[in-house]
Each structure stands twice: as C-alpha cells, then as structure tokens.
C-alpha cells in the first residue's frame, strides 16, 4: 500500500471521532478525555459488528487529516471551546477557506475546505464543541468542564447509537 496514494474509501470505519486537545492544558483535555472514555466503553463490551467507529487523538487539526476524512459517513470533531454554549454545541461544518488564515493548526471549516479541494466534495464534518474555562499548562480538568464533558459524552453516545448501533471501535 502506498502512503502517497489516497486510501480506498471502502473498508474504513463509517464514523470517525477526532478528539482534539492537549491533555496537559486543563480543560483542553476534553477532546482526548472523551475519546478515552469512549474507548473504555468499547473495551467493556460495547462491540458489535454491523458498523464501525474509529477514534483518533490529535493535538490539533492539520492538512493531512483531510486524508483521514475520506470514505466516512460521519466525522465528528470533539474539542474544548473557549466560548459558546454550556455544556456543548453540536454543529455541521461547511467548508470555509478563509478560516485557513490561522496558525500551525487548521480550523474544522478550513480542514473541510482542504478536503473539498482535494476530493471535489465537502466532507460530512461535524463539531462537538464542549465548553471549557481554564487552559493553563499543568492544570487538571475543572469541575465545570468535567460536567460539560459528561453531558457531551451522553449526547454523543445516544446520537451514535441512533445511527450506527451497535458500534465497534477501531482505536488508534
């Protein structure tokens, strides 16, 4: 298999959940912690065989993550949000190239735009923005963020179950 050719869309997990964040920066751990808890639930026996969910931890979204989006029915980016609704906000992402004007990382909208330019169609990208408060280096998850994480996980679990029950994890 060449690493420089697009991976075949067939055979990939239908759903990709991307947890964005740095576990050492306080509430920024929300994304990776949500994935960690999903992973633990899968390990305890939430496995089935009719569909698949892949979990991917990243520090930040980068251009090459567009390649991970291919062949998916849903891609959900879970990240801590510095502002916005409490406990979380779910939304669909439209490609927006202007949001590429950023830093070393890409916004979900810019990632969707990269994908669209590469493959000609918009990806099925969603965000689950979970409200956080404190993002200092070495801080642990705050109480408010922990409660928001619980609520977001419950929503995501129910939402996934409605669509792709039962689920089988293919963890990174």
């Amino acid at each position: 298999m060449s690493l420089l050719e697009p991976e075949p869309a067939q055979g990939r997990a239908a759903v990709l959940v991307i947890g964005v964040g740095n576990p050492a920066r306080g509430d920024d751990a929300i994304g990776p912690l949500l994935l960690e808890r999903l992973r633990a639930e899968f390990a305890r026996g939430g496995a089935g065989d009719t569909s698949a969910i892949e979990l991917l931890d990243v520090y930040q979204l980068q251009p090459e993550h567009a390649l991970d989006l291919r062949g998916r029915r849903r891609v959900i980016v879970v990240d801590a949000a510095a502002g916005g609704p409490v406990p979380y906000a779910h939304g669909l992402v439209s490609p927006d190239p202007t949001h590429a004007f950023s830093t070393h990382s890409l916004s979900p909208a810019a990632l969707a735009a990269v994908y669209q330019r590469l493959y000609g169609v918009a990806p099925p990208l969603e965000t689950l923005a979970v409200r956080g408060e404190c993002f200092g280096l070495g801080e642990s998850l705050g109480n408010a963020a922990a409660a928001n994480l619980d609520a977001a996980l419950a929503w995501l679990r129910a939402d996934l179950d409605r669509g792709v029950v039962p689920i089988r994890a293919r963890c990174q």
Partner: protein
Amino acid sequence: MSSTLETATHPERLRRVAIEPLTRVEGHGKVTLLLDDDDHVRQARLHIVEFRGFERFIQGRPFVELPVIVQRLCGICPVSHQLAAAKACDRFVGAETLSPTAEKMRRLMHFGQVLQSHALHFFHLASPDLLFGFDDDPAHRNIVGLIRDQPDLARRGVLLRRYGQEVIRVCSGKRIHGNAAIPGGVNKALDNADRELLGIDIAQVIQWAEEVVGLMRRIFLAGGEEFRRFAAVPANTLSLVRPDGALELYDGGLRARDAAGRTLFDHASDQDYAALLHEQVKPWSYMKFPFIAALGPETGWYRVGPLARVSNCDFIDTPRAERARQELVALGDGRPVQATLAIHWARLIELLYCAEAIERLLGDPDLIGDDLVREGVPGANGFRRTGIGVIEAPRGTLFHHYEIDADGLVSRANLIVSTTNNNQVMNESIRRVAQDELDGRTLTEPLLNRIEVAIRAYDPCLSCATHALGQMPLAVTLVRGDGEVLDQLRRDADGAVRRGPPGIAGAGDGMPR
C-alpha cells in the same frame, strides 16, 4: 550589535501600533511599533505575552516519565522534546552510548519529525506568501488558496506531511503521545512490514523534495535584491555538527560562528552549554534572550535553525542535499548567507536531507535488531544526577537540562527551546523590516504582513495550544501619546480587513487549539 530600534528615547511621545496575536504562529506573541508624528518607526519589539512555566510543570516528576510528559509541552514538535528528554535521561541510567538499533530508531523518528514539520511550514505557512506575494489578499493567501491555484503542489505538501507522520507512527507506535524513546534506548525496533511500507514511497518522497528545493531556489533568485535584503541581519550562528563537520540533527558538538563566518567555538560538548550560552531577561518580554557568553548580550545573540545549520556545517552527507547546500552557500560569497527568506530555502534542503537519510536508514539492518536498551554500571555515588540532552529540532537547537534527587524525581529543569534561541534575531529581523519597509509610510495590511513574513520565516512555535480560533487574528491600533485611539486596522477571522473601531470578533468555532 543590537538595533537602535530596540528602545526609543522618548516612548511617551510616540504612537503605538500593536500586532496581536501573531497569525500562523503558535502561542501568544505580539509586535509593537512606536511611531512618531511623521510615521517614522522609533521602536519595534516582538513580545511574548504568555508565561509558560515549563520547568514547574516538570519538577517533581520521575525522570523515567520525562520523554512522554514533555511531549505535552508542544503539539507541534513533540518528537523533538521526546528525544531531547530521552538523551538527557540516558545519562541518568549510565547509557552514554546507545545500541546501534536504539540510536538508529531514534534518528529515523527524528528524520520523520523534521520532514513533516518542514513540509507543514513550507506548504501551509510560507508558500502562500512566496507564491502569491506579500500583498495578496489574506483571504486567498493561505493553504486553501494554494490548493486552488497550485493543486498538485499542495497535494504533495499534504502527502509529504503524511509520510513523515507515518515514519513517526511506525517508530513510536502512535501518531502522537508515542513512548518509543526511553532512558537508555528504545522500546521497539522496526519490523519488516513497516520497513517495506516506508520503502514503497521513499523514492517518490525524495523526488518531490528535490523538486520543491528547486522551486524555492527559483523563487528566491527571482526575488533578486529585494529577497536578499528583506529582514536580513548579520547574526552569529549556532548548531550541532558531526565530528567530521557534517550537518547533524540528532547528536553532535556545538559550533558557533560569527556573522563573517569566523569560528567562535567548535565541537564543544553539549554538556557544557551553560558555560557557553547565557540568558538575558528583558522587562518587556517573558521570553529570555540567550547569547554567546564570550561575546556578551549586545553582540552575542545568534541564529539557530535551518539556515544556521546549513551555513554552519562543512557538508551534508547525502548527495542531493549537498548539491543543494552548495548552491545556497555560494550566494554568501564566502560569508554566511544572512537573508531571512533564505531560511525557507535551507529548510527545504533539510527536508531533502531527511528524505535521503530515511532512505539510507531503511536499508540498514540495525533497525531490525533486538538490542534495544543499554544501562551502565553505577559508580560509588550511583548514576549521574544531572542530565543534559541537546538536539536539533526543526526550528533549531533545543536544550533539555534536568537534575534529579536520590529518588529519581526531577528537582530542577531548564529548557531552552529553539524559538527562545532565535528571540533576539527575530527581533532584529522585524526592526530591519520596520526600518526598510514601514518607516514613513501609512500602515496597511500588506505592510504589516511584511512584519509577519519576517517572523514566519523562523517558524516560531511559542507554545502549544494557547490561542483560540475565533479570536481576531490581527489588530492594529494607533494610539496618540495621550492615549486617544486615532485609528484601527483589523483583520478578522474570516480574513477580511476592516478599518474602524473594534467590533465583535469573527465567530469562528470558539475552539481553543
């Protein structure tokens, strides 16, 4: 010699222009310019406005955890921190020399890291400026604009990134949070399947790397005198070199040269860095200003990173990269090239070197070995309690220095990251731009972008994950000496430039990455 624009004589009489936060730069940084009534620049500073507290984050932790925990300091170059910490920890277990398998696995992982980091910088951050021009509409001057206008080039950038990430993954088992490098060695060798996987594409990777070096060379030469002079400053240079003088990214002696190319010290042990380099604190920035101790702070500041490395070494021991190096250094006519935009060229030469080095390593049988960890014999007082690890990270020389107590817990840590090493030279570069390009002119977004172009050439990474998307990426405010706001220029999250008082920042997605 530091620029006279570092500190103005009567700052209270000057107008202040702040550019914050810097776009396409990690962490919290801003540039302030002080202008007089005729728009002449009297002071220019790059400030770091966030205190990171790395050392306190590390203190008290068992040293065996360091190679993993330090990766959380930075999401941009975690492998570099992992390897620098592992090199420091090797000393805590008496492993002064690693097994061939362990050292080559670490090198392979490092080449993958540098390759993907350099690819990200050129294709994502730098090439829009270089290909579309500094004056291009910021809404177009980005990675998506690149994909639209140069789809094949952009696609190669994405795939080169992916290749580098796969090198890291097969070496460490994960894309991020890898734990391959441990005190005394590594915890896994390469397996044959992964070696074959990486081998399939390496010839293509080398070809693409060579072509993009050629592209950058043409861009630079086409830029003529403007590119040679842009943000150019006469800096000392610092880097690791191999004992035979070759370019070295993983382990070697320290070499410093002055702006004329005269050697200041050579093959100095990295364990003696604290005697060779000192750090100065300035009241207007949280980031320290390192300097070569023998020269003092006024003239001892230096450049690290791709251009310093490519200039400092005597040769590169892979054929294509060496040919490319010779073309670059020839521009200096016997002196080190000091053009800030040549950093991009040097960066891509290193990308090519990494690709060639990966190809060579993949053919090395030592990678498939089972001698993974070495441990020394403790002396009468046990093992060392001080560990220093130095590595050439993508952005430049990275120092990790730890001291541990009798229980193996970190009692003191000192990290000098690449961007800190480049602190003064970045400041000097923006002062050059301020003087050459902004002085006496009405400020516009393209002019301010030139400041950012100079900073971006160094690819500074101030810290991981501290900015929030959705915040206004660029705001410039003109304030009279008495504090009255005269004018404001802002570039919102949607890329549009607007003039007028501050409004609500672009909605963005509110995600703090």
